[in-house]
């Protein structure tokens, strides 16, 4: 447990010492700010639904860039050899790293609370939908980070990890299209598997335990996959 905390601190420090996290955050906030303003000016509605809906897509591009270094960089630098021969478990190392990336994401998400503040001052927003949107966006981000970490654990190349992460996320997005295309049993399964369906209910202010369960197991599954991946490669 403590090993996880030290890995988290080291990882967070590495994020903050390198330009990568700042660039990702800057792009996230710049595009987010633009979307928020455009939507607000066009609709004149005190609502973040359209904003979160679009940002879900943006997240798909930004998260793999944030997470691609998580394990691939350790392999590249040879520090994997140090971490895997230190008296800590693979699980502790991976969760520590995951939480560090999550912390960076939370910083970005924290900054967007400004939009809620703006809406509160200039209109009467539906707070259920607003907080539902924040919760959904948080869960979506955490789920995407887990996929990104898994992609990073697969390879020693950051480029490959980034592309793979993006590909996986895109796959989880577009698999939902099967629901409309096929319908029936397959369509139902596709509808459940895709992250979008679960995400969009949150934007309406619906917090269903089914969705919470979905994101929880989604994150758990990808963290486990990442750990299994490293264990398969390095034993122990």
């Amino acid at each position: 447990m403590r090993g996880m905390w030290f890995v988290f601190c080291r990882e967070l420090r590495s994020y903050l010492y390198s330009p990568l996290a700042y660039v990702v955050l800057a792009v996230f906030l710049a595009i987010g700010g633009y979307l928020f303003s455009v939507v607000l000016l066009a609709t004149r509605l005190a609502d973040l639904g359209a904003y979160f809906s679009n940002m879900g897509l943006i997240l798909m591009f930004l998260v793999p860039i944030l997470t691609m270094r998580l394990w691939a960089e350790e392999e590249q630098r040879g520090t994997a050899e140090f971490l895997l021969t230190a008296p800590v478990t693979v699980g502790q190392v991976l969760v520590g790293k995951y939480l560090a990336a999550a912390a960076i994401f939370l910083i970005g998400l924290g900054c967007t609370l400004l939009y809620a503040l703006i809406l509160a001052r200039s209109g009467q927003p539906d707070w259920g939908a607003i907080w539902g949107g924040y919760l959904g966006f948080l869960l979506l981000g955490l789920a995407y980070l887990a996929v990104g970490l898994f992609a990073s654990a697969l390879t020693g190349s950051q480029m490959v990890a980034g592309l793979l992460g993006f590909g996986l996320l895109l796959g989880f997005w577009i698999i939902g299209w099967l629901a409309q295309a096929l319908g029936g049993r397959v369509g139902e399964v596709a509808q459940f598997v895709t992250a979008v369906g679960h995400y969009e209910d949150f934007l309406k202010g619906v917090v269903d335990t089914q969705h919470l369960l979905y994101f929880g197991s989604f994150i758990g599954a990808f963290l486990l996959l990442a750990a299994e991946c490293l264990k398969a490669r390095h034993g122990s």
Partner: protein
Amino acid sequence: MLTVEGVSKRFGPTVAVQDLSFTVEQGEIFGLLGPNGAGKTTTLRLITGYMPPTTGRIKVAGFDVATAPLAVKQRLGYLPENPPLYPELTVREYLGFAASLKGLRRQGLVREVARVMEEAGVADVAGRLIGNLSRGYRQRVGLAQALLGSPELLVLDEPTVGLDPVQIAEMRRLIKELAAQHTVILSSHILPEVNQLCQRVLILNQGRIAAQGTPASLAAATGGRQLEVTVKGPVAEVAALLAALPGVRAVRQADGRPGQEPAATYFLELLPGEDVREELFFALAARGWPLLEMRRHQLSLEEVFLQLVTEEEPANGGGNPN
């Protein structure tokens, strides 16, 4: 301290090491020697638990690497071939992180980090970013990391590679000092280094044990002796005569310009246990060729190594013997 039993490691169809068995005793400096690609790094990675062996068992201080990896990892310090460093951290930050992973806390951690920095000679760069350090300093920071928590077993993979001659001498002195408190297993492709540092040596070639023992016993067992003689006489005939002596395995003429000098130097490789000095003297005397000089050589570890490594090649090149 360390027991390796029948260990093999395959990567797909490639056999990296095959059927290794050896033990390292407490307080020993044990050397793994071999040409590039012989399986030294793989062997050390198996010992540290970085990857699992395909078959066989490895025990460190009585703990099996496969079943009790954490207990083993707590007892060993490992310096991989490329020191595992985070360039964006300072030396002190990095060692602090490594120490906390090894279970050190607060006061003990600060003291231990200071101790290993002193021991590895990096105290003067404690506040510098690792990314800005020279190769020699990085190597020593890597060593400092391995020393944290005074592990019982130190595993050093090519500890002197990339260092300048002064640093190499320092590193060797340091390793010798370390043997007082730690058991050390190191790998190297530099023979004099192993000869000088290690009490026992294992020579690896193409993933197999070519020989093991003390440097002296290896030289005695495999090479026997070499005789250097200088004879005045026609070169081809002298060489033929020397080669015909019983107990002589091979004759090699020393580099020189034949024909210019009336005397030439020859190296005779003798079969183990043979002494041909008297026969050699009388044979030369009978032909009237004066013997100007005769000297006995013990084969150095380097020659033993070359002999073992070159002898093994045809056997492996001609198909799979096992």
